[in-house]
């Protein structure tokens, strides 16, 4: 029972990290039809920026940890907004070029990060309370797991409030359904594009800092390794569906965690799940069928 609880809660923690990356990916694809392969770069840069600022303040302090999250969120948002404004904006409806540019940016970013910070993972001291565990029904669960889950829930609630309660949220939801009709109403949908990229980058930035605390290191490859599973989560949840991304994040991560523990085939089972979903329900768990 203790093992079950431990695997379940750590699975939820991993799912929280997947969701922080996948939420932005899903919104960006839903509104703009763009598969953003550079999303991992937002996460990695934010993780390094958070680490750089945090270590100057003392990463082993709570204030350093909090500041690193804020810095990570801001850097992720800024990098994403610049990417949209400088590169992606010129390429709407040109899907091949979008893939080439975002893949190119992703590869170039990794090379740049390796040039600046080296290719090896940089391990760092975390605040003592983050390295401690909390007992849940006999299972000792690391506190970083609870922090990741709490952050993901806050981001999910914030995004849902934004989408459902604000004027811009209404535009974005409408744009996800029918972008050209939003334009036909006289709405300049490009502002919504930039905003969605920025929000996605911010969530990825928070995810980057939390992931580095979760794993205990920052690395130029941090974003890429999470991005693969975030893409799988986005497809399984249904491209464009925030709720789908949340549900799929939990399903994928918990399944991965249990399978890894008992059989060691966690990654394989996730890819198998992706294949089954694509065959049985190609639009994903909560996505809409293509017209």
């Amino acid at each position, binding site marked *: 029972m203790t093992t079950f609880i431990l695997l379940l809660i750590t699975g939820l923690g991993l799912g929280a990290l997947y969701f922080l990356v996948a939420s932005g990916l899903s919104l960006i694809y839903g509104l703009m039809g763009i598969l953003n392969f550079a999303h991992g770069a937002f996460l990695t840069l934010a993780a390094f920026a958070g680490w750089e600022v945090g270590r100057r303040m003392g990463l082993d302090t709570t204030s350093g940890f909090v500041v690193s999250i804020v810095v990570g969120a801001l850097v992720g948002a800024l990098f994403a907004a610049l990417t949209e404004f400088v590169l992606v904006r010129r390429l709407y409806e040109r899907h091949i070029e979008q893939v080439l540019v975002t893949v190119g940016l992703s590869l170039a970013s990794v090379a740049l990060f390796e040039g600046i910070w080296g290719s090896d993972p940089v391990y760092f001291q975390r605040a003592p309370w983050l390295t401690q565990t909390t007992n849940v029904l006999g299972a000792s669960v690391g506190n970083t797991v609870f922090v990741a889950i709490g952050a993901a829930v806050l981001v999910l609630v914030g995004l849902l409030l934004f989408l459902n*309660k*604000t*004027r*811009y949220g*209404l*535009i974005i*939801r*409408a744009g996800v*359904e*029918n972008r*050209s*009709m*939003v*334009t*036909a*109403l*006289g*709405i*300049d*949908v490009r*502002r919504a594009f930039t*905003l969605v990229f920025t929000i996605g980058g911010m969530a990825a930035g928070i995810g980057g800092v939390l992931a580095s605390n979760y794993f205990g290191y920052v690395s130029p490859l941090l974003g890429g390794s999470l991005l693969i599973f975030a893409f799988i989560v986005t497809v399984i949840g249904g491209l464009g569906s925030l709720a789908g991304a949340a549900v799929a994040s939990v399903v994928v991560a918990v399944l991965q965690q249990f399978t890894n523990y008992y059989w060691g085939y966690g990654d394989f089972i996730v890819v198998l799940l992706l294949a089954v979903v694509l065959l049985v329900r190609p639009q994903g768990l909560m996505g*809409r069928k293509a017209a």
Partner: protein
Amino acid sequence: MTEATATSVGAHAGPGTPAIQLVDLSWQVGGAKIVRGVNLSVAEGEIVGVIGPNGAGKTSLFNLISGINPATSGVVMLRGTDVTNETISRRARRGLGRTFQTSSLFPQLSVLENVRLAAQQRLGGNLSVLRFPRRDDEATQEALRHLATVRLGKPRRLAGSLSHGDKRKLEIAVLLAQEPAVILLDEPMAGVSSHDVPDLTEVIRGLHATGASVMIVEHHLEVVLGLVDRVAVMHHGELIAVDTPEGIMKNQAVQSAYLGDIAS
């Protein structure tokens, strides 16, 4: 055929300025000429029907006017302003609204949200990222008023759950919320049950009564002929006649091209 003489490109709206003026408007895809040298003028407050067989170029003409497709040559004037090279959203902000043959709604948004989106765009405030709309704010009140005008209840329902006739009504409520000066209706009766046609005809009449100029593409000829001031007939991408409904019914060229069975 030339139906009217164009005013100078870029002229400002003023008394007597047409709501829409098309000057030698053409659209070509590869070697196929879809719209051929159309000249047409629609006066402020006028309602003009566009009829013609399938493939005549009616919807393509609407796409050129609304900016969905770029004109190969010619000029589109909207209330005295040359909008030929302007984007769809820019033309919409100049007061052009349109519906589409297939439903142009947001099915996963509620009925109210569909209309509210258009109302908030017209009233402004979209840039307020964190501006939480109140339940009773101006855009919501306007949206509810327009829904009442088209006789559509239950505003919290998802638009995708509406019947086809109600979807058409909702599209017109969205148009009302835009308060466009010029309206293009592309087959508003398509797929609507015969029971709903009179009701929808009255809704369109009400739309026109707001003072807007209207162009309507419609295959229900009895609806068009009873609703419009003039009828424009297209055939093979060309405008072959523009006249009153009575004049069109007597026009030999039109009868042979399109109306033969109905007029006889």
